[in-house]
């Protein structure tokens, strides 16, 4: 790593963050960690568990479509679900800045409760710390989750398989754009809501529809492009997606256009991609719901890279997120 200090870019979900994660992975290297899926798969001696952790530092705390509490449950439930596991138990750790109103904490806690109930998980342990004013931004939350992998015979990994078709369960870029509009006071009335949602039941449906799902991933920070690059990078294959097939709501696309944002790099919190055997594409698409789309496929060309067939008809590389996007006028 060339940089001597950690910068915000190291946490944006893009290439730099992957560099730090790789450094840390090497330090702790073990079979479960090295797979680098959203949740670790653990063998207990009698069964398989999935274990995951995530921290939430979103600003503003409350946004259209959700809040930090809802996000903290959905985020970890989804990581567990992406491993094909049934999420069961959550730990909840809160770091609170001195001066936060009780009413805000209460509102967040209620949201955690509602989301856990919806997901069918229980918050079974927790921790609370209060820090001086300025030492954290209002509240930071960490959740960890445990789930059971009941599926026998096939595993959800990190690598793409030859011949797989790539599906997504709905439109992209909603969460990131909802947050941006709320946080930066840009003054757009867009009706865009974060798509923050629990994906465990949707994942379950997909797995019931097909035994040929090789990868499931929820494209959060860094967006769809980054998630696809992670998967391609871990495999011996390339990925090709079609720009015209990627679903995006009209108002989300409009806001991206106005601010100069590329929706392929904007965060999602209620979407996941599924790599399924070609024969099962139709069944999995149906299971994922009416907004699901087939967006691309795994190929033997340009190994470890992701290519985009643009609306103009050209095939060009689709790299991982480099630096956070900023609103621009040029």
């Amino acid at each position, binding site marked *: 790593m060339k940089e001597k200090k950690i910068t915000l870019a190291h946490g944006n979900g893009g290439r730099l963050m992957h560099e730090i994660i790789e450094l840390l992975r090497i330090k702790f290297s073990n079979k479960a960690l090295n797979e680098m899926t959203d949740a670790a798969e653990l063998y207990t001696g009698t069964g398989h568990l999935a274990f995951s952790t995530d921290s939430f530092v979103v600003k503003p705390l409350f946004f259209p479509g959700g809040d930090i509490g809802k996000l903290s449950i959905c985020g970890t439930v989804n990581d567990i679900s992406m491993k094909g596991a049934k999420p069961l138990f959550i730990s909840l750790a809160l770091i609170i800045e001195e001066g936060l109103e009780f009413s805000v904490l209460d509102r967040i806690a209620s949201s955690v409760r509602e989301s856990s109930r919806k997901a069918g998980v229980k918050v079974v342990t927790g921790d609370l710390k209060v820090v001086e004013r300025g030492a954290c931004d209002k509240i930071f939350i960490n959740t960890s989750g445990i789930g059971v992998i009941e599926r026998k015979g096939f595993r959800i990994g990190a690598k793409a398989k030859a011949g797989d078709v790539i599906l997504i369960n709905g439109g992209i870029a909603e969460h990131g754009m909802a947050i941006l509009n709320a946080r930066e006071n840009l003054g757009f009335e867009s009706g865009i809501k974060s798509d923050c949602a629990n994906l465990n039941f949707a994942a379950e449906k997909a797995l019931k529809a097909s035994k040929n799902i090789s990868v499931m991933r929820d494209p959060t920070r860094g967006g769809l492009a980054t998630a696809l690059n992670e998967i391609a990078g871990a495999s011996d294959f390339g990925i090709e997606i079609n720009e015209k097939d990627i679903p995006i709501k009209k108002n989300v696309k409009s806001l991206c256009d106005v601010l100069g944002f590329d929706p392929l790099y904007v965060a999602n919190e209620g979407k996941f991609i599924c790599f399924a055997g070609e024969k099962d594409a139709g069944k999995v698409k149906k299971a994922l719901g009416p907004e699901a789309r087939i967006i691309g496929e795994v190929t033997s060309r340009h190994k470890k890279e992701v290519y985009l067939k643009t609306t103009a008809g*050209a095939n060009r590389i689709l790299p991982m997120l480099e630096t956070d996007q900023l609103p621009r006028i040029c």
Partner: protein
Amino acid sequence: MKKKKIRLMEVCGTHTMAIARSGIKKLLPREIELISGPGCPVCVTPQSDIDRAVKIAGTKDVIMATFGDMMRVPGTGGSLEGAKRDGADVRIVYSCTDALKIAEDNPLKKVVFMGVGFETTSPTVASTVLEAEKRKVRNFFILSNFKVLFPALEALASSKRIKVDGFICPGHVSVITGSVPYECVAKRYGKPCVITGFDDSDIINGIKRLVDQVRAHSSKVEIEYKRAVAKGGNVKAKKVLEKAFEARSSHWRGIGEIAKSGLKLKKEYERFDAEKEFKVKVPKPAVPKGCVCGAVLQGIKSPKNCVLFGKKCTPQTPVGPCMVSSEGTCAAYYKYGG
């Protein structure tokens, strides 16, 4: 007989990016070569302008408002993003009017707007200055780092170093200016100019019109972007711009000084001029060792000819402006390939 390639230059950063994102270059016949010119106002802003902004941003009781495009551009001593990290109040705005609002909401602070852009943008700032005058806002200032395109276009067209057969002209600058100013370039230097929109088909149609002209040895100004550009342009915008600003000589990073290619506030609006309000000394601009942004900006070199490209100079650690701007030639090349 082997025909030589038709070299077309686009002079608009938005075109650079649109062409790169859509992959159009890969679809074009081999006989057509697209080169990027100095159409990115971020790229051509000299280091001294950025240094001045960074110094002012670090001054007590100052709020620096800027378009997102300028946040990461490095001067000799860091960027506005770096200044923000060090505690300066730097805020990204979508419009100059947002900066004016910040000034009205913070009467005890001095709000400085970092004005960068071509003819599409400068009238919007001129309008805001007139509004500030009307509302008697006393704590609002403009750093006028605007550029005027046509003197630079003439410099490119007349250059012996740059071999260009025609220009893909910026659609949105032309919404303001109209097509008349390009006639000088076309007539005097014999280069066809086609004012082009930004959709995939706009760009391809624009290229086709240029190819047709080059074949016919013609050098006319054509408007491909008919649905938005009129010959006379936007009269009101031009009037508003003329009311608040006048031309001055300006330094284009990588190219040098070009007469009448910059803007400064007229005497009547001097009180809004940040350069007069904050007298800061900035170091003389120095080109970082190995940086060839200047040649890249003029279409003489390609990013791959630069020793720093992809190694010392990356989007995360940009050395020159062509890499840091979201529309810079090197940024496009790094992200999407040649």
